């Protein structure tokens, strides 16, 4: 039994989750009042951002923070443990959610809130935040499912043949992935008798290494499916373009990043012994994802499907960091996840503006949008450059760290990964700049109506402002990356040397 009660300050770890879940419950009750729903959701996410900033500052100051509820000592009680990566990604997710809420309000103006959009967004945020902050693998499974149910709801909301078709593939494959995750959890529990992440670190070295490698490869498959890594990515391009752009943006910004973050945590932090055996596999998956995904983007004519392939390419970059487990490799992977949460969301939001401006989803029939809205073309170009990793923008810095890790690793594997990262940048740049040329630069095709949406009315300005704010944040973070570097490198040190993490959970000293 734990004698000392949890300190009041420690509640900051679960405060974002409590806020998100409670507000979602209230929003379900307030479904009749759409305006109230929007304001309440915005206030709640604002409060979540504030509490996560407080959490991040506290973690920066004094190392990982942990809290175990119910006065049960950790390995038994469920721990919530925040290190720099977890707290930072949770903050990025909440920031992106605010932007998406504002953008969605403009898109949904005139519609009532009866479909529960705001409640589902908050539930999705709760699932994502919980996955980033939990310190227990079974708890991670539960948050995955919270996230999955909320994203199912967002995906099928409103119906329509294409959305149902996409949702079937999304639903079945993601449910299969979580079943495989649960399967590996069962095996891990049988081997070690514990599912607390810090406790697994203690117990793993004495377990049968072959069996642990089997569990680690099952985890790789399950999280790889969630993250849409190359051979198991079919569900992403099949489904992400079917809902409205704002929902695509939310899903693309949050879901695959949670999967790849869980992979990073599981393979690098929790089971480092098995990771050594799996490194050739990880490197091959990373290289294949990095090279093949942007080729898909080049071959695609549907704008948002093309962006889906760019999202998958970004997952390859994070996998490259997991396959190169040096300080700069893990820091690069972490910084890339942060960058991808912001950039992929912004790409879909801007794609939504483009689709609205041209009345078209097919990039072959777009054109001439430059004349209607030159600033929009700049937003799109900035995002293409950021996604490809061209210097002044955010995407460059994580890629620099990854390249440094690849060159530092030396040998065949490091060289191939460096080559794949460069090829990925070039191919992404080709795909993105060609989309840009087709959408903005080329003259409008004959059959194309001149300007289907009045660019410049109030609704347009609100959405424009939301997307512009996010792009501005990406540009600013690229110009002043010092804070990001500091967080990424300290976070990577904590992942690679988890002594502080274990001490925070309270297993080493006995008192939390």
């Amino acid at each position, binding site marked *: 039994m734990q004698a000392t009660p949890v300190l009041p300050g420690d509640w900051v770890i679960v405060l974002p989750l409590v806020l998100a879940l409670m507000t979602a419950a209230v929003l379900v009750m307030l479904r009749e009042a759409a305006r109230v729903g929007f304001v309440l959701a915005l206030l709640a996410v604002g409060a979540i951002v504030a509490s996560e900033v407080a959490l991040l500052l506290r973690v920066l100051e004094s190392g990982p923070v942990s809290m175990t509820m119910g006065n049960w000592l950790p390995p038994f009680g469920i721990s919530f443990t925040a290190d720099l990566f977890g707290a930072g990604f949770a903050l990025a997710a909440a920031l992106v959610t605010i932007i998406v809420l504002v953008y969605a309000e403009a898109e949904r103006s005139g519609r009532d809130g009866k479909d529960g959009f705001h409640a589902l967004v908050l539930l999705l945020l709760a699932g994502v935040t919980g996955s980033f902050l939990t310190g227990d693998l*079974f708890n991670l499974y539960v948050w995955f499912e919270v996230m999955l149910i909320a994203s199912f709801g967002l995906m099928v909301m409103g119906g329509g043949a294409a959305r149902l078709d996409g949702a079937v593939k999304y639903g079945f494959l993601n449910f299969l992935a979580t079943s495989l995750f649960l399967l590996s959890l069962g095996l891990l529990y049988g081997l070690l008798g514990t599912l607390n992440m810090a406790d697994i670190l203690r117990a793993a070295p004495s377990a049968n290494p072959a069996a642990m490698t089997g569990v680690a490869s099952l985890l790789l498959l399950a999280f790889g499916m969630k993250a849409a890594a190359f051979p198991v990515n079919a569900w992403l391009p099949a489904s992400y373009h079917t809902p409205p752009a704002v929902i695509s943006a939310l899903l693309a910004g949050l879901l695959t990043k949670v999967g790849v973050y869980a992979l990073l945590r599981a393979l690098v932090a929790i089971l480092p012994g098995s990771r050594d055996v799996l490194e050739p596999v990880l490197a091959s998956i990373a290289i294949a994802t990095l090279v093949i995904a942007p080729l898909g983007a080049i071959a695609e*004519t549907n704008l948002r499907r093309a962006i889906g392939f760019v999202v998958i390419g970004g997952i390859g970059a994070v996998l490259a960091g997991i396959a190169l487990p040096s300080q700069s490799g893990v820091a690069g992977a972490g910084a890339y996840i942060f960058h991808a949460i912001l950039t992929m969301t912004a790409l879909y939001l801007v794609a939504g503006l483009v689709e609205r401006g041209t009345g078209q989803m097919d990039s072959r029939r777009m054109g001439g949008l430059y004349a209607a809205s030159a600033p929009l073309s700049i937003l799109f170009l900035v995002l293409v450059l950021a996604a490809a990793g061209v210097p002044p923008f955010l995407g460059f810095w994580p890629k620099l760290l990854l390249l440094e890790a690849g060159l530092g690793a030396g040998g065949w594997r490091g060289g191939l990964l460096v080559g794949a990262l460069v090829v990925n940048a070039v191919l992404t740049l080709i795909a993105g700049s060609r989309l840009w040329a087709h959408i903005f630069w080329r003259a409008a095709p004959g059959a194309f109506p001149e300007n289907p949406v009045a660019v410049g009315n109030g609704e347009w300005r609100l959405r424009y402002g939301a997307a512009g704010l996010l792009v501005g944040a990406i540009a600013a973070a690229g110009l002043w990356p010092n804070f990001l570097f500091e967080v990424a490198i300290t976070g990577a040190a904590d992942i690679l040397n988890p002594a502080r993490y274990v001490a925070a959970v309270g297993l080493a000293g006995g008192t939390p």
Partner: protein
Amino acid sequence: MDFVIAALVGCFVALGVYLLLSRSLIRMLLGLVVLGNGVNLLIFTAGRLTREAAPIVPAGLEHPAGPIANPLPQALILTAIVIGFSMFSFLLVLAYRAYQTLDADNTDNMRVAEPDDAPNPPLSY
């Protein structure tokens, strides 16, 4: 006893994978359910099978009197069953709606989101 249950888990997983490989949505759904039950049984077996009493503390005592069964796998499975059942219900409704809207239970015919006759990529710049 463990070996019998372990073999049963193997049968469940094999059957689940077999059903998932079919083209019909309903068969795939049944495959997911069988697979999920196999996984639940696996967690149960992983917690060691014993013939001990239920983990309940008698009145007036601080901890159970004799040896007890491991309660943790039961708690884990209870959670997993609830979640798995909610997922199953959702996917069942989704499959029904897809059948109504797309008039297809066969996944080969579900090509609305990814059209069969996809156009060539643009060849110009």
